[in-house]
């Protein structure tokens, strides 16, 4: 089966990220024959991803020679050959770790078509390829769905389909399942098995032993060199490298191990002493463990948190609980079912409580409520004696903590969000850590003291003056954790703190958690890893889907694992889970009414300028007849778009309220006409009211047109229109095709960034940073503390996205074909005439008496 020449041939390949000071790859030799399925394993930061990118032709080495698919892409003497790389890349597919960052647009079939378009595949061929690719990954039924709203597993299969449509001879996958839950992992693996059967050569970077089962060869990258291992030892290695359950994120976790080496001389001793401390503490811990269990039995809200003795009436243990939550419910704005439903739980001082449950069970929401970052709908929440939320005497609404109480809660509860290193912002590590204490209003001496203490605790004192962005992922996480601990919280909430860390780093984290307990700090540990929960927690609380808390006291060590244990980004996956249901909804309604309507089928190149013209002209309306013309057009458009009244109302109500206010404001400026009433000294006249009405009508027309446009036009179509309308600028050297692509990618990433921004704002306000209160300097600092991490996140996405575009063979100026063919049809001409008539009417009635 290995006839023909090698698919990839690497000879004496060297690669360094720091100009040769340290070699990530040191003399790699590798030959890959057609039909092979190679699994590439190795610890975090060992250079697996780098090697996979070299094989995929996405990056060039420092030295050595590389042949890909018969092309000498990199020669020992002449370096990179762009033309050879270009040719080779067209037959190599690459799939990366983060499912989301590989999606380029918001319609599945368009996304799959992107690669073939870049290869200039003929239109009909693209159709066949889309069909085959989607069939191969089992997404046939979802052609029109929005991949940015799919679950991680579906997104990763979308990415694979995008590659298959380019008919690659070699497929390189860099930890494609790292961010996925078990089910999704199995789906992706079965797709790979299929591809292997059909003869595609596969290079698969993985941490998971079970994924190496069908490999023809398992190669291990260690100490910058490659060795072949047999299945069994690979199993062990892969297992120790990163155990299942925590999403591996090489980008964040990379060189934690390396930083241990760097510190080794000074720190190892210290680390050992902490380990010894921890050992001593764990004895204490075990004896403590019995007590919460007892109290929890008394408190334990059994099934569905129904009527059990309420905590307050139950006999309390020696001290009152640090956190008490009773009958808590929370529903996302606009969601139909609650994220949390009648949840009750307590956390005692110095207790480690693990929170487990499937995605969407509301674990992160619970964390936000305890941090006073989200307002629950019902229930009582008390944190360290501070009433965060309690029922009002009458009615269903709750009484929520005031600003002073909230900032007290922020000082009491430390919130370590998922991937906390994403909240780093300051110029130096010490400054970043000092942010929280400074926000608490402590004096400089105290702030410095706390910063130094916590750095010593985490063995990062030597990093104090460095930029946090210059550190390895593992170090960054320590700094971020230090920034929370420096606030000296009584309760630390950790959301998947071990996600993406390798075994060594995880041990250090666990030692830290035990140390905190020894200090009397309570820890609420949100985790998907049942081993971690069993090992660390005094108590495990399981929140089932739908969010009714079950305080499963007896389950410590009982060994039952959570059904849908999932990796990494639970917040994201939770959102994805919600989206999944939304996607299901749209499928039930499919085909979408509005998309199939007359307005929905208009050529976007006609629709976009026509709508904008009408919207802009609406501002020129000054009399009733003009208003009538405009209103006729708007009503006509509304009917032709078949947009439902409910949907229209939902999309315009926010603006409408604003516009009514703006319109009414005119009442106060108009003095002409008959005075009807006076408010204070301001006369209200009939002319004033008429003008207000006119303005409100104008604004309404504009916003209705805008809403109809957005409801009937996909981002892809908007991009097509922008591309076409900007294309005359090409004569002036403007990269119009690229600008259009930039716009389309921006539309696709905007919601992602908005979500991330909210997460960072939460994390910083939990450290007491508020842009709404305080002195101008403080507010500006708070703003910087949000903006810098947001930029950092955007750059991370950009890095991933750039690679994904490379993998799809996008290049500036190439000849592309188009899957979506635009054609001006008779309906477009009719529509243009109607719009022209409207504009003429509005202009004519402006001059007619």
């Amino acid at each position, binding site marked *: 089966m290995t006839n023909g020449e090698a698919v990839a041939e690497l000879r004496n390949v060297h*690669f360094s990220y720091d100009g040769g000071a340290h070699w990530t790859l040191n003399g790699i030799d590798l030959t890959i024959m057609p039909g092979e399925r190679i699994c590439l394993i190795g610890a975090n930061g060992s250079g697996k991803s780098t090697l996979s990118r070299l094989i995929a*032709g996405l*990056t*060039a080495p*420092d030295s050595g020679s590389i042949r890909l698919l018969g092309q000498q892409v990199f020669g020992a003497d002449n*370096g*990179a*050959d762009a033309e050879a*790389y*270009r040719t080779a*890349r067209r037959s190599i597919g690459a799939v990366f770790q983060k499912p989301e960052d590989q999606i380029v647009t918001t319609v599945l079939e368009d996304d799959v078509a992107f690669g073939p378009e870049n290869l200039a595949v003929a239109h009909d061929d693209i159709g066949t390829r889309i069909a085959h690719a989607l069939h191969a990954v089992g997404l046939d039924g979802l052609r029109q769905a929005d991949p940015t709203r799919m679950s991680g597993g579906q997104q990763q299969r979308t990415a694979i389909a995008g590659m298959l449509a380019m008919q690659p001879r070699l497929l390189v996958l860099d930890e494609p399942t790292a961010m996925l839950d078990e089910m999704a992992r199995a789906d992706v693996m079965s797709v790979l098995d299929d591809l292997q059967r059909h003869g595609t050569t596969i290079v698969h970077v993985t941490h998971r032993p079970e994924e190496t089962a069908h490999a023809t060869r398992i190669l291990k990258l260690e100490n910058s060199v490659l060795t072949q291992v047999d299945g069994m030892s690979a199993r062990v290695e892969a297992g120790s490298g990163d155990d299942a359950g925590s999403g591996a994120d090489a980008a964040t976790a990379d060189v934690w191990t390396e930083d241990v080496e760097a510190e080794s001389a000074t720190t190892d001793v210290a680390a050992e002493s902490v380990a010894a401390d921890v050992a001593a503490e764990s004895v204490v811990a075990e004896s403590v463990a019995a007590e919460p269990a007892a109290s929890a039995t008394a408190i334990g809200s059994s099934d569905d948190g129904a009527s059990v003795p309420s905590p307050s009436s139950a006999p309390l243990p020696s001290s009152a609980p640090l956190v008490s939550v009773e009958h808590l419910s929370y529903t996302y704005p606009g969601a139909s079912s609650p994220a949390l439903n009648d949840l009750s739980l307590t956390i005692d001082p110095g207790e480690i409580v693990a929170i487990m449950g499937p995605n969407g069970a509301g674990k992160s929401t619970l964390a936000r409520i305890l941090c006073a970052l989200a307002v629950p709908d019902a229930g009582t929440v008390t944190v360290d004696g501070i009433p965060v939320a309690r029922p009002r005497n009458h009615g269903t609404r709750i009484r929520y903590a005031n600003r002073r109480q909230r900032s007290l809660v922020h000082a009491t509860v430390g919130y370590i969000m998922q991937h906390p290193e994403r909240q780093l*912002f*300051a*110029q130096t590590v010490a400054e970043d850590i000092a942010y929280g204490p400074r926000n608490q209003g402590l004096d400089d001496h105290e702030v410095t003291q706390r910063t130094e203490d916590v750095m010593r605790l985490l063995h990062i004192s030597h990093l104090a003056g460095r930029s946090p*962005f*210059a550190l390895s992922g593992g170090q960054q996480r320590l700094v971020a954790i230090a920034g929370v601990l420096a606030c000296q919280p009584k309760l630390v909430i950790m959301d998947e703190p071990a996600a993406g860390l390798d075994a060594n780093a995880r041990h250090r984290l666990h030692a830290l958690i035990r140390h905190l307990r020894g200090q009397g700090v309570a820890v609420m540990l949100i985790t998907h890893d049942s081993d971690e929960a069993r090992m660390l927690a005094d108590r495990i609380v399981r929140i089932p889907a739908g969010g009714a808390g079950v305080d499963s006291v007896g389950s410590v060590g009982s060994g039952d694992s959570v059904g849908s244990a999932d990796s990494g980004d639970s917040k994201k996956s939770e959102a994805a889970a919600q989206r999944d249901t939304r996607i299901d909804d749209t499928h039930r309604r499919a085909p979408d009414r509005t998309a199939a309507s007359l307005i929905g089928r208009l050529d976007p190149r006609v629709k976009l300028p026509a709508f904008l013209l009408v*919207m802009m002209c609406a*501002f020129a309306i000054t009399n009733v007849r003009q208003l009538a013309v405009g209103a006729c057009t708007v009503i006509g458009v509304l009917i032709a778009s078949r947009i439902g009244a409910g949907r229209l109302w939902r999309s315009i109500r926010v*603006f409408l309220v604003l516009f009514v206010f*703006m319109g009414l404001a*005119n009442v106060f*400026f*108009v003095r002409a006409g008959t005075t009807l009433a006076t408010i204070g000294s301001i006369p209200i006249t009939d002319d004033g009211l008429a003008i207000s009405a006119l*303005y409100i009508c104008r604004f309404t027309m*504009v916003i209705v047109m*805008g*809403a109809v446009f957005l409801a009937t036009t996909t981002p892809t179509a908007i991009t097509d229109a*922008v591309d076409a309308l900007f294309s005359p600028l090409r004569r002036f050297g403007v990269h119009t095709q*690229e*600008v259009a692509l*930039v*716009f389309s*990618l*921006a539309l*696709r*990433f*905007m919601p992602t*960034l908005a979500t991330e*921004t909210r997460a960072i704002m939460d994390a910083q306000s939990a450290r007491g940073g508020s842009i709404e209160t305080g002195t101008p300097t403080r507010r*500006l*600092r708070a*703003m*910087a503390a949000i*903006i*810098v991490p*947001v*930029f*950092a996140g*955007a*750059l*991370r*996405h*950009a*890095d991933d*996205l*750039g*690679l994904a*575009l490379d993998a799809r063979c*996008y290049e*500036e100026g190439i000849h592309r074909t188009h899957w979506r063919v635009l054609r001006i049809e008779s309906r477009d001409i009719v529509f243009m005439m109607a719009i022209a008539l409207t504009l003429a009417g509005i202009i004519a009635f402006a001059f007619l008496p």
Partner: protein
Amino acid sequence: MSQSSAMQSHTDSDRSTAAATETPTAHTANRPTDHAVGAHSTGVADHGRWSTRRIAMYALFVALAMAASLIELPIFPAAPWLKYDPSGIVCLVAGFAFGPYAAAIVSILGFLPHVFTSPWGALMGMLVALAISVPASLVYRRKRTRRGAMTGMALGMVIALVVALISNLLVTPLYAHMTVAQVAAMIVPILLPFNLLKFAIHAVVTFLIYKPITTLLDHAA
């Protein structure tokens, strides 16, 4: 003093960026870091082409500007209807990091979604964003120092102020029943101080965050 030396190193890395951006070089062992291309290039994206990395960077900056333009913060108690949105900061940073062309793209595309809710307002937003970020990046391109950044932003602020006032004179009467003269009467008490405050926040925040962001860009490359 340590600040000025820190500034110096940042200056140097930026100068090399400019060099690499304008005249992309072939792969060499010690090639300077280009924010928009990155080391270990396969050569596919060289020679005046827009690398995929550059497209991705611009796209994320535009996405950021779009997201930021949706934020509305009341900063001027005298005129609560005038809201501050931080998108101008993104335009400025884009201009400093990638040049005036990037500033223009981010300014225009970042406001494009608003065209569908408030066409004239969006146009005004684009013009003002262009007026502050493009001159700022043009000055900074010539003079890559802390002082250059300040001069650039000061110039941008003046131009943007003029553009903001003129466009207010023209556009406000479309939204409210006021004559141009009535809007002009609002300049000194409301429009001028609000816009000054807005641009000052842009400038100060950009100044605060630019250093860490260059560090980030250097490490990302």
